[in-house]
């Protein structure tokens, strides 16, 4: 069984291949966001895109000495002997040498320049590169940022060059900006420039969702619950019956939900986006979901009820994915909640009776509704950020390289690989991965979705082909329930200072209180005191900042 789990873990990476960075780890903490400069607060300096728009309009491609003009297709230069040094990360697969992967080598070869790779271990990238950038020395021409720089720290440190001046050499990037006004607004720093070329995540597809063991559902004679009441009824049935037919009625664990997914799963039924933490209503009012005196209290009461009834297990705070997989592989649990890719690639595949169909699998279902209609929380689409360092020897060439690396031609390579090698085009024009391409190890080593080194965009189409048919269908059905998360917003220095000063204490209070209220070690009669404690931790000041940021975001978006 152990071998099987390992095999399934490896197989799961096929989806991660297409949705790399889709959140393989734990669920993200509620939005603890932005930060950057005090001088920004006058309307004239607000985060608007006029400057970017004007720069794009005025941008003109310039010819090299040889007369060659880069227009968005390979090569980026006709001058021989050019080298660019790129600081990026290794693949998250230890058996993949990303810089020598065929797809990566092809992009580099087509571009007409040589790349001197400086690859830092994927698992330590942030820890290694943040101090390195802190020293002010990137020692590379192009740098993959260790985070999204929501505080504009790196922008203000002068480490990177504004890209506006190179727009003439970036036809693919400028077109992408014009086609994606939301991300253009998000990427525009407070000085009106854009500094980063991003990779992108899918925002509404293959998001975390609720999954049920369909075999257990059938045995219970129930369909996937739509409401909290139905859900509790189902859990009780699972708990009281011998769902796995092993003669022991006591070994069933009704649901196996990791702590970080509880807010995803139950928050929406109470009208709360606990994933983002801060949320805005239709009127633009910004609130902190964990301080909602009515709905958050009801949320905690509900979970406390589940805990008391033994439907939420004692160990929920320390449950991890390995344990969930182990339980599923032993047919011990009926409900899970995780990133969508786990559905067919990690959970269903380890079920003892999985036959490749949705009838014997863990299948995604609609979110639970309570007094409020349920929803799933999507992801910010901006992913890995690439920048040109101030010390780049030939920044214009770097701009061209990044531009080419995000061109449609390269995105096709990232998502599908090379025709005839990793995929083929059928007679009806559809694509499918070749037999080799369906071998995850091979596909990874081929360099599929090299978001570690290039601004790659996740693709729903290629993921649909990779996962089981029923999984792709389930994703298409669930897309309608996904709402936008709290947006990516740059912050000012003053905002950053305030948030960094107060938010850790607020987060600490929220984390420990939620665990205490759910387990009952702190009675819910103290909920009002908890709200008071949050206020005393300066939550109103943080909420005000979030409000200002959100207004700024809306202005930048709507003009």
């Amino acid at each position, binding site marked *: 069984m152990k071998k099987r789990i390992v095999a399934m873990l490896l197989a799961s990476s096929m989806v991660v291949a297409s949705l790399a960075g889709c959140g393989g780890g734990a669920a993200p903490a509620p939005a603890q966001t932005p*930060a950057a400069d005090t001088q920004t607060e006058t309307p004239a300096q607000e985060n608007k895109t006029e400057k970017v728009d004007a720069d794009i309009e005025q941008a003109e491609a310039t010819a090299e000495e040889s007369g060659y003009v880069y227009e968005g297709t390979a090569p980026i230069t006709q001058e021989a002997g050019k080298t660019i040094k790129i600081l990026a990360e290794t693949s998250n697969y230890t058996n993949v040498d990303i810089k020598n992967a065929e797809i990566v080598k092809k992009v580099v070869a087509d571009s007409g320049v040589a790349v001197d790779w400086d690859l830092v271990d994927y698992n330590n990238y942030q820890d290694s590169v*943040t101090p390195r*950038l*802190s*020293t*002010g*020395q990137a020692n590379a021409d192009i740098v993959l940022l260790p*985070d999204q720089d*929501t*505080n504009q*720290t*790196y922008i203000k*440190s*002068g*480490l990177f060059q504004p890209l506006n001046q190179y727009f003439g050499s970036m036809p693919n990037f400028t077109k992408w900006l014009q086609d994606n006004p939301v991300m253009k607004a998000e990427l525009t720093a407070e000085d009106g420039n854009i500094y980063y070329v991003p990779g992108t995540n899918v925002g509404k597809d293959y998001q975390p969702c609720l999954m049920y063991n369909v075999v257990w559902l059938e045995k219970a004679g129930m369909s996937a619950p739509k409401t909290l009441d139905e859900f509790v009824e189902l859990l009780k049935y699972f708990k009281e019956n011998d769902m796995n037919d092993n003669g022991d009625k006591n070994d069933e664990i009704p649901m196996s939900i990791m*702590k970080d997914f509880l807010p995803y799963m139950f928050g929406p039924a109470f009208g709360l986006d606990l994933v983002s933490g801060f949320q805005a209503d239709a009127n633009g009012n910004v609130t902190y979901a964990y301080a909602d005196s009515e709905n958050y209290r009801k949320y905690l009461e509900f979970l406390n009820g589940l805990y008391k009834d033994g439907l939420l*297990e*004692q*160990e929920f*705070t*320390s449950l991890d994915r390995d344990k969930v997989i182990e339980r599923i592989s032993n047919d011990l649990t009926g409900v899970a909640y995780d990133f969508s890719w786990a559905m067919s690639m990690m959970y269903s595949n380890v079920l003892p009776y999985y036959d490749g169909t949705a009838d014997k699998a863990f299948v995604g279902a609609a979110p639970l509704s309570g007094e409020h209609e349920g929803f799933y929380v999507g992801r910010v689409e901006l992913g890995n950020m690439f920048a040109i360092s101030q010390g780049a020897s030939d920044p214009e060439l770097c701009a061209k390289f990044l531009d080419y690396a995000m061109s449609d031609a390269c995105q096709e390579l990232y998502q599908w690989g090379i025709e005839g090698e990793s995929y083929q085009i059928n007679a009806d024009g559809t694509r499918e991965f070749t037999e080799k391409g369906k071998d995850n190890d091979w596909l990874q080593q081929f360099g599929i979705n090299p978001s570690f080194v290039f601004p790659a965009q996740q693709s729903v189409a290629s993921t649909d082909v990779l996962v089981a048919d029923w999984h792709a269908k389930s994703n298409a059905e669930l897309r309608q329930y996904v709402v936008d998360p709290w947006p990516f917003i740059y912050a000012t220095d003053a905002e950053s200072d305030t948030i*960094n*000063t107060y938010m*850790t*204490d607020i*987060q*600490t209070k929220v*984390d*420990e209180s*939620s*665990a*205490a209220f759910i*387990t009952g*070690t702190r009675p819910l009669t103290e909920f009002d005191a908890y709200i008071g*404690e949050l206020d*005393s*931790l300066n939550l109103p000041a943080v909420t005000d900042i979030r409000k200002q940021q959100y207004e700024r975001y809306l202005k930048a978006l709507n003009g």
Partner: protein
Amino acid sequence: MAKKKSQSAYTEKKLPLKKRIYRDRYLLCMMVPVVIFFAVFCYFPMTGLIMAFNKYRIGSGIKGVYTSPFVGMQWFNQFFRSVYFFRLVRNTFLLQFWSLIIGFPIPILFAVAVTQIRRKPIQKTVQVATYLPYFISTVVVCGMINNFLSPSGGIVNQMLNRFGIESINFMNLPEWFRRIYVISGSWQSFGFNSIIFVAAIMGISPDLYEAMRVDGANRRQIIWHLVLPSIRPTIILLLIMTLGSMMSVGFEKVYLLYNTAVYETADVIQTYVYRQGIGTSPPNYSFATAVGLFNSVINFAIVFVANRISRKVTDTAIW
């Protein structure tokens, strides 16, 4: 002998500095690497403490350590004013305090016991078996603790169930955290920590044992009147050294064992600084430095006081 000593001291004074340097040139050369090592890795970095009083600008490099805007006591104030300040200090102190109370005497008692074993092979086997856990990495130890104490299937709870006791969710109950931390820490390190005491006991002259035996002393009397007094300076030295890290709990172990449900007793200064100073984006190195400085000052004060007390009470001191 005394006369000789004072005579050489007199000649020493008479020799000019240059001549003394020339005379000891080889010895001084041997000392150079050590001086360089301490200067580069200990004393020069200490100048970086200035970061605790400024707002370090990311991207400003080493120069920025000294040239970033001065903010005075801002980071200290931020730390002291945190509602969690007293809880953090309390948790940090108590974890170390109990580790000391429980963990310090055990290696001494073990060393005394193990040196009383007459059969060498058995003695060596016992020693090796007890200091092996020290070499297990913290991550593995914490994984073992989590598995053993799991309410569903953990060996400890299975045993409790056999005796009709309900499972206890050890890792989620604040009242259990310190016990788990201290006991597991003592288990892991008592064998290794006893090595130095074993060495001290081995250094006691066999003549003294023999003399006591001739005088009719039994084993208990030998331990009480010979062994323990002989290793007293070692005990005190190690005690003072241990006191020097009273406020420095091992970050990794707490970080790997704690969760939000046990913050009340498990959240220590180091984990808080990680969340507040290093874990944020961008990292606030100045805040982390300020808290580090605060910790070091407290540690130094404890060592200083302990040394003074030791000197007065036992006549043994580090300096």
